[in-house]
Structures are given as C-alpha cells and as structure tokens.
C-alpha cells in the first residue's frame, strides 16, 4: 500500500464542491454549495450538520454515487493526485471499495437481504484483490473476526436478517475494510444503533484508524460522537461549511452562532436536571438561499445588518475557518 500521498499534499482534497439537483421547470436545488476540506492520511475528519445540511450529499458526490441524471456537480475532488469527478467510470470503480470505502447509516438497507454475508464480503475481495475460493473465504473470516463478530465461520453463511443491527454494521465495516482502503467514509454509522452498540462501533472505528492508519471521514448529526472521535470538525449549514476547527477548539470556543447554538441546545448527560436548554429558534426548513445573505440569519441571535445583504465568506484565521459577520467572541457568553 503506497502512502506516497503524505508529502504530495492531503490524501483527499475537496475544492469548492457544488452539487445541484435539477428539476424540470423549477429552479435547481443547491444541496452542496462550495464545500472545501482536506483529509490527511491517518486523520479523522468530522462533517457535522442537521438534515438537509448537505453532509451526506457531499460524501456521495466524493464517491461519485449520485445519479448521473438530474444532478450537476461542480468543483474538484482530488484523491491521491486524481480528480475523482473527471475520472472515467471504469477507473472510479477500481478506486471505490479499494482505495475509498464507505459505511452507510442503515446496515439493513445497504446489505443484500438474499445473499449470505460471506458472499457479500468475498465479493469485494474478488473484485479488487483477485482472491478466489478458499483464500477469499479465509480472508473474509479474518475480516469478520477483526471487527469483533463472534463465531465468524457460522456468520459467513448467514443472511443479513439473522444478524443484529450492531452485527450488521460490523459486517459492513468489515466489507469496507476488506481492501485496506486509504480513506473510509462513514455516513452516520451509528445513528441506527443503540447507545451501547454505538459505543462498540465507535471504539472499533477508532481502533481501526489507529492500527491501519486509514483516514476517516465521519458524517454525523451528533456532536457527542464527534467530540470523542475526530481531529477536525467541519460544521455545515444549508450546503455550506460555516465553521471548521480542531475539535478541542471548536467545542471549547465555538465562534459561529450556529455551532454555539447547537452546543447550547443539546441536553448533556453530565448536566444536572433542570439545567436550561437554549434552543435555536426556527427550523432548518426555514432556509433562505445563501444568495440573499447568510442562510442562518433568520434563526440567528447575532444577526447584524450585513447578514441579510451579502453572504459571508469563509475566512481562515489561526487554523480555523469561520463564515460569519458577527461571530461569538471568546468572552461573550450570551450574545445580544
């Protein structure tokens, strides 16, 4: 496995990615609007946002898994020197599953219900590593064992419905890891799971990142999941990144009113009963296009005049990026 990407720049470099869903006779829907981020080898990057923020579409666009029709994609996605968006489909198929693998939210709907787990895992090995027969089965068994599935020999013959939710997610992770990908994209990998199983899966992902050096893009709506796992966090709102920072910085000192608002509105397990919650007014559905200023402005307590006139740009300063005219300041706890 070559790790030549280390010196040649980031492993994954997404530049100004735009995804628009086109509709006949109606204006396009810009689901992702100029998203840029990089992922280094061995780094864990979190994309955080609510439904409709464009986090999943971003990952699907990177993997080129969006349908050809009805979608316009702009920008560049550099992976190890290649622009994934312009690669021939044939070449992309080689990369997908081998160099970049993906784990989806709902393990039941991403596994084929009528094919045993073993065949689904060996399929990846056959396609990308040219393993056949016993060699493939042995490898598949080892993969299942590695992700913590007890009795892998028996599980290989079983169908997805015979596995529990956590077990299925482990099987999916095993498939994703089959070819030792250099980049793993996990889209809400624990959202469908119970907390105790979620803890197991997150622990597994962390262990894999540590042991194999694979880079991980973790997409989630759960700030708690991000807090314990990732290195860098990108907070998305309405198709744009509004704030990016190292996780310690972001949580200790959120600057974007949306990030601050999210943190203040989530009940924390370690907060005493009755600690007040401060919800963000409105809902993500109250979208306004970025062309008319900041999309978050209608819900923002920090709104000032420029916010509704011109859209803020993402500015970088001291290792963090922020898209806001009137950010929270470090000592300002209660915005006016």
């Amino acid at each position, binding site marked *: 496995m070559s790790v030549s990407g280390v010196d040649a720049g980031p492993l994954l470099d997404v530049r100004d990615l735009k995804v628009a869903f086109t509709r006949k006779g109606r204006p396009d829907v810009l689901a992702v609007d100029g998203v840029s981020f990089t992922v280094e080898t061995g780094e864990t990057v979190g994309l955080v946002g609510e439904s409709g923020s464009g986090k999943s579409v971003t990952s699907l666009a990177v993997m080129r898994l969006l349908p050809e029709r009805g979608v316009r994609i702009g920008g560049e996605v550099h992976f190890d020197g290649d622009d994934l968006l312009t690669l021939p489909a044939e070449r992309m198929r080689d990369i997908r599953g081998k160099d970049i693998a993906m784990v989806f939210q709902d393990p039941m709907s991403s596994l084929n219900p009528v094919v045993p787990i073993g065949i689904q895992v060996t399929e990846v090995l056959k396609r990308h590593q040219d393993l056949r027969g016993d060699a493939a089965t042995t490898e598949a068994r080892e993969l299942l064992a590695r992700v913590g599935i007890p009795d892998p020999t028996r599980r290989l013959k079983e169908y997805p419905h015979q596995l529990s939710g956590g077990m299925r997610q482990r099987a999916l992770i095993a498939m994703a890891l089959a070819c030792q990908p250099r980049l793993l994209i996990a889209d809400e990998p624990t959202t469908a799971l119970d907390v*105790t199983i979620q803890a197991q899966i997150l*622990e597994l992902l962390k262990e894999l990142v540590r042991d194999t050096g694979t880079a991980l893009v973790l997409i989630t709506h759960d700030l708690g999941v991000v807090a*314990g796992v990732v290195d860098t966090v990108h907070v998305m709102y309405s198709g744009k990144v509004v704030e990016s920072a190292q996780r310690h910085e972001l949580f200790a000192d959120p600057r974007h009113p949306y990030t601050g608002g999210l943190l203040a509105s989530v*009940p924390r397990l370690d907060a005493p009963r009755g600690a007040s919650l401060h919800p963000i007014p409105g809902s*993500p559905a109250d979208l306004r296009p970025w062309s008319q200023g900041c999309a978050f402005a209608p819900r923002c307590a920090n709104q000032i005049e420029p916010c509704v006139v011109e859209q803020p740009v993402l500015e970088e300063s001291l290792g963090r990026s922020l898209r806001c005219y*009137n950010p929270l300041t470090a000592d300002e706890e*209660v915005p006016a």
Partner: protein
Amino acid sequence: MSTAEAAETDRSTVEVPGEPAAAEATRDEQVRHRREIRQEDVLLSIRGLKVHFPIKSGIVVDRQVGSVKAVDGVDLDVPRGSTVGLVGESGCGKTTLGRAVLRLIEPTAGTVSFDGIDIAGLADEDMRRMRRRMQMIFQDPMASLDPRQSVESVLTEPRRAHGIEGGQSKGVSELLDLVGLPASAASRYPHEFSGGQRQRIGIARAIALEPDLIIADEPVSALDVSIQAQVVNLLEELQDRLGLTYVVIAHDLAVVRHIADVVAVMYLGGIVEQAASDALYTAPYHPYTKALMSAVPIPDPVVEDTRERILLTGDLPSPANPPSGCRFHTRCPYRQPTRCDDERPALRDMAPGHTVACHWAEQIHAGVITPRASAVVEAAVRDEPPPTRVPLPGDPTTTTLGPPPGV
C-alpha cells in the same frame, strides 16, 4: 469528580441567550416546590405488569409455541405532576409498557391503576372515556397525523370523539397558542409544517382534552438536533402551566435526565434501576446503568478524552427466550459465579427512592467487585497523543477573530 467540574465550567461558555438568571432561579424554585408537595400523590400505579406476545406456529391450527416477554413484571409509581422517564435500548419493552398503560395493548397480567381506578378491569366504553384523561405523544409526528386532515380538524376531533362542547376543553386558537404556533396554522395541513411544528401539533392534540397524564413515546428523537430543545422546553412549560404528569419514554439518556424527575432503566422487559434523575446519573448502581451512562457520548472533547468507558459485549438477548437468573448476566462485566446465573434479582432499596435489581449492588458500589478488565476502555488507551496544533481550550487570546474587513 473533576470531569464534572470541567463540564460545568465548559457549559457556561456556550450559554446562549435566555431569560435573566434571577427569573430562571425563581421559576426553578417554584417548580421544585410544586414537585415536592405532590410527591406523595400517586396518579399512576403499575403493579406486576406483564405483556407477553404469543409466538404461533402451524398453518391450519395455530399452536402457541412460546411468547415474547416484552414486559415481564414491572412495578412503577408516577406521582401527580411529576415526570417519570423510561429509558432503555430498543427491545427493552419501554414502548410496550407505555402502550399497555393506555391499554392500546392489552396487558397479560398485572394491574394499572390510574387515579385509584384499576383500568385493566374497565369495560371498553369506560376505558375509552378514561382515555380523555390520559393521552399520548408519538415519536413520528408525520406518521401520527392524518395528511388529509387540517390542523383545526386534528385539534377538534378529540372533543368530537368525547362529545364535549366547549367547557372542559380548549379552543383551537388557544391550543395553538399554548404550543407556540400561529392561529393561522388552523387551516393548514400537516405537510405544510416542519418536523418540529408537526410535533407541536401532536402535543396540542394531546392536551386538547386537558388530560392528567401524557405518555410521550420518544417525543424528540425524530427531530433535528436544534429543534429537540424547543420541544423539550415546550413540554416542560406545558407541565408548569397545566399541571401535567408525564411518562417520557426515550432512548436518549441525556434528554431523559434533563426532563425527568425520576428515571427507570429497563432491560429486557424489567426495570433494573430506578432513582431520582440526578441520583441515577451521578451514582448509578446497576452494572447496566453504568454501562449505558458510559456509552452516551458527551459533546465535549475534554470529558470524552478523560472518561472511562464500560463496553458491553454482544447484543440484547431475545425476549422470547430471556436468560435465566439475572437477565443481564450474559452481558454483565461484573458477573459473579454465584447467584447471577440462576436467581432473578428483585428491586431492592439502596438509598431513599433509589431501587436496584442486582445481587451485588453494594459490593459493586463499594468497589469490592470490579468489572472484567477487557470490558473497560481506559481513558488513556482511547486518548490520542495530545494535539500539538491546538492552543489550550479556553485561552481567549489565541482564538480571537477580528471582524471581517468591510464590516
């Protein structure tokens, strides 16, 4: 505990606008006072409740070959005016318990007495009338509202069903006002609203008949994170204004800690631990509660990096064939060679108002029995090397951003 302190101080830095602190304090005090005086007045009392679903087999003759013991012997008291939280993982029976209380599912055994009346023995028509006083809020507001029914119709239907005109019920505009929706919402249809607003409609429907008890089954889990707090606050506000009693069923422990006075933790059809909310979270006795708490991610990297985590192995056993003895023994990191496998522990009082179903609760609490080493993920193991690029959290000088040019 230093982590708790860290969390405390950290929380204060992310506070966003709200009511002035003083007003908040008096409100809190009132709430506490109100709760104390009602402590002894039990509105809902559940004793030995069982709900078993038959498993049938055979094509011509249905033979019962077993049963899924969804709820298997639950005792629970809900004081008037308080909030009781039911937490547990999927399949633990919390939803079935909630539905059995309203007799939306017929209990197999046990009694449910509501305001002194045993509702398990009520005739259908009497039960229907009784439901005016006990309402439910469902998880998915889209699925629980008829897409072809206007909001006005949704909110007046309960009255029509119970043959009430005016008097004992609230008008549509009053209801909408209570849940924070504009009066113009009355003529609109569910699809015109966002998820949070739909849940508000569901709540308005539940309070339309001025019930005493509301069972809220996962009231916020289908909502976006930024919306959840709105609905949680609304529920609390309505409780204060209308004197409601809540049973809140949720898998999100943080939400339950926030909203509930008393929390009951369920595992495989039974309650394993029950205590006042803060007591349960600060000093859990039962191994399952401990594991559950340690599994909940906290949105604070400092806490996440320093806390110890107890990982459970495996999955929930099938409720059709629950393990013998303590139901949790197959996954318990504290399992002992005696008693755990063959003797089902009963709920015992460990502290005032704190009951635990574990044979070894005292020894575990005293630290005499420790968890299997393999089950504990030490903070140090999970910790990555200290991030060098990151300035110290809370250091304001390193992270102050100037206003963008031109503003």
